[in-house]
């Protein structure tokens, strides 16, 4: 017996000797959680039960490409806004605002447009407008529209806010 005890003792490592191996923090707790998860996952349905029309993916590319192609008509270069006096820009806002109000599909309020353009007048790009106003269907309002300066001036003259606009234009000149 004693021999066996000694033999066993020779195989037993001293508690003071470290193996040199380490594990990540919470590793063993993680194993328990993973095992628990696996057991639950095994019981859950795994089939993809959502179906699609047979030719859906084949036809999809065409639909998307059609939507990104510029519509026929005039092109509005939003960068030109920087060169148009503030008063004329406000006329553009009135133009788009009217368009939004008449278009029942849009949830964007007129005030939201005015506030946004006012704050970002120096940095407006067409990407900003399309990305910022996610609820607006730009196809409906045809954003690629050129407005001639004569049209803008005529709009200004006919505007109810002509006095305010003239004042804004004067301020812009001074600056």
């Amino acid at each position, binding site marked *: 017996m004693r021999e066996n005890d000694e033999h066993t003792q020779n195989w037993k490592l001293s508690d003071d000797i470290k193996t040199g191996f380490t594990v990540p923090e919470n590793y063993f707790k*993680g194993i328990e*959680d993973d095992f628990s*998860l696996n057991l*639950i*996952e095994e*019981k*859950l*349905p795994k*089939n*993809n*039960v*959502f*179906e*699609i*029309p047979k030719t*859906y*993916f084949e036809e*999809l*590319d065409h*639909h*998307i*490409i059609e*939507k*990104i192609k510029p519509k026929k008509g005039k092109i509005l270069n939003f960068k030109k806004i920087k060169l148009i006096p503030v008063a004329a820009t406000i006329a553009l806002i009135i133009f788009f605002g009217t368009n939004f109000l008449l278009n029942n599909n849009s*949830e964007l309020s007129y005030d939201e447009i005015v506030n946004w353009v006012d704050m970002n007048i120096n940095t407006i790009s*067409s*990407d900003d407008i*399309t*990305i910022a106003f*996610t*609820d607006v269907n730009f196809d409906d309002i045809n954003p690629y529209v050129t407005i001639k300066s004569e049209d803008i001036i005529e709009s200004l003259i006919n505007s109810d806010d002509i006095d305010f606009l003239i004042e804004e234009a004067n301020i812009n000149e001074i600056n």
Partner: protein
Amino acid sequence: MIDEIALVEELQNIQTKEKAFRILIKEYKERLYWHIRKIVISHDDADDVLQNTFIKVFKGIDNFKQESKLYSWMYRIATNESITFINKRARERNIDITEMKQKLVSNLESDKWFSGNDIEIILQEAVATLPEKQQLVFNMKYFNHMKYQQISDILDTSVGGLKASYFHAVKKIELYIKKKTH
């Protein structure tokens, strides 16, 4: 496997943009579709959201600075578009988003593009009860078989946080299913 950096360069070049965009659609349409579909449930709605996602990608690609991977950026747009879609529907009906998601699931039984049985409907109901983040993590991990690191790149959440989210999501789903089936 496409070369993302080269593809982004072509997408940001006006001469090659459309051709590169067609490649992009071909490469990512299915993955994005199934990601969106799991969130919005209906095929027709997923189709709308997917097309809007690609249009947003096309319009925003010039400003893409490659601070993240292209697919992570696109998945984020797809996720945001899906959530925006559901929020909009909820607002139109004057109900909260959780109720809206449950409404979407309740239409599954009569949905011609759903072939699941009762237990599979219960699973979808259970997923719809989860908080938004847990739902996203569960869909991406369980249904889309994405790795935690991929999910982390898209949702901008640590892998540890995602593991915790997934664990809680699965536990809640198990509890929901047990209640419904007993």
